[in-house]
């Protein structure tokens, strides 16, 4: 993909969009909470990748993670620009509130990314417990696993998710996951 982008193939640009547009737009929307602002951040992210096809280094991890990080930086920068337009220079409370808003938006975007990229067995367990309001015994039956395993998945899933928060993450015991 990267070589095809560097070669300037319009078809590769289309494939790049098809692969990552929903990730990019979803994360940008989570940070900016506004459809038009998310559209514009999406344009910015894809334009950056297209103009800098060598910026991604495959030795540093999967492209998906890199695109997610780029999106978060782009969207956060857009949020800060938006805040600067609305800023009252004499209000330290507002500055503090804006800072908190950026922190929360960044954590939310990291959490979304973690949920989409965690093993699907963990995601399924969390979704049953959270959205379907299954208790862990019902979740175990739905998933066809032991109750022990259902408890383990819920705990491990939340541990992964907690690494999105600014405080140092818990080390999930035996987790095969590197954020």
């Amino acid at each position, binding site marked *: 993909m990267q070589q095809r982008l560097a070669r*300037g193939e319009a078809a590769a640009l289309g*494939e790049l969009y098809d692969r990552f547009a929903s990730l990019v737009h979803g994360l940008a929307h989570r940070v900016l909470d506004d459809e038009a602002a998310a559209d514009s951040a999406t344009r910015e992210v894809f*334009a950056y990748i297209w*103009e800098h096809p060598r910026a991604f280094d495959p030795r540093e991890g999967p492209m998906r993670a890199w695109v997610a990080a780029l999106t978060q930086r782009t969207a956060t920068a857009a949020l800060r620009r938006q805040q600067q337009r609305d800023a009252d220079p004499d209000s330290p409370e507002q500055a503090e509130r804006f800072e908190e808003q950026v922190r929360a938006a960044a954590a*939310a975007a990291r959490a979304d990314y973690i949920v989409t990229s965690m093993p699907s067995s963990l995601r399924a367990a969390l979704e049953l417990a959270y959205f379907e309001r*299954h*208790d862990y015994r019902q979740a175990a039956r739905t998933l066809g696993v032991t109750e022990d395993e259902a408890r383990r998945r819920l705990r491990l899933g*939340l541990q992964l998710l907690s690494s999105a928060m600014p405080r140092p993450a818990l080390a999930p015991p035996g987790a095969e996951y590197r954020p």
Partner: protein
Amino acid sequence: MSRPPARPGPEQPAGPEPSGRAPATGTADTPPGPDEHRVLTSLLGAWALAACSAAETAAVETHLTDCAPCAEEALRLRDAVGLLHSEDSLDLDPMLRSRVLEGCLDRRPARIPMPAWAAPYDAETARLDALLRDMAEEEWRAPVQLRWFDGERQAARETTVAGVLGHLLAVDGLVATGIGLPDPLPSGALPTGPGAGPQARTEVYWALDDAGHRAQAARERWREQSHALIRDVSFLAAEDAGPGGEHAAPDRRVDYGGFTLPLRDAFLDRAFECWLHAGDVAQAVDYPYEPPGPAHLNQLVDLAARQLPGAIAARRRSGLAPPVRGLATAGAPGRTLHLEIEGSGGGDWYIPLDSPGTRASPERTVAHIALDDLEFCQLAAGHVPPLDAAAGQDGDPQAIQDVLYATASLSRL
């Protein structure tokens, strides 16, 4: 997704057990042993999600008051629950794709651009793919009615959403093999020659019993081929445009079994089919689906309009339409129908009525049809019986009938 009302959980700690019995795993009076600690720790995730029994909730909460590491983890896990979030914008605006890609290409022009006549296929396959992304397992088996006009009457064929994808894959395969990509059908499965058209290919593909028919696999095979088509045709067009290009890509022809189409028209034809079948799929799963953007819609209308003289002639040859009145001279201006397509994808087309070899001439207009762009496409797809099309008409009734029937006859399975 929305959450049903909360049941008692960590935010609203459950009261003591009504029976007053001590929870199974230790009480505040007798500190839990290492085993109980292990069990209670394993419950922390379920506790944070309010997904354990009242007794377990009480036991965990008692434990948290005198176990600092567990209390710290419990707090973090409960905060993490606050980050869970339903996906609130599943649907990307389908028009965002072209805006984003245009923005990119303005900043850095492509060295291998996509031919303008391949752009509708690129956009329509991307839109269908987005529709399929969140399709649930059972939706892939939803029944779909494929409808067309067989020259004399409406025809229909029952399949499933996965079957529609197989149909698109098998017929796109004509174009794929035409530009040197592998055939999605196994070699030897098909007769060669006029029998090997879209319908035969589809029947052969549907009769294969393999995993490729099912859900996710059907989507992946179709998507992989459509990406490969766009990629390879871009290179082909770039080579043809370069020095020493002997065949211009648009003049290459794709064999459809009984007839051939220039490569550029084959790509427009596949874009048209992709859009209409995406509409069939969307209808089957009760989902809204928009028409293509105006510039693309105009290219698709133009393809159908350009095919009309040949379709009129074919109907005359097979006796489905009365023979032409009087002698037509090739190259000379002949009797003409003014086809006025309204709407954002519309325009004016002048259709020669006497034979494909005569020239259309606005001065020799004997009839006029006015039709909405989407209605015209529905007619060309065979979804509307020719005489039911909501068309404004004026002039020679036979000419009008010939053109409406010829338009519907462009459709096929």
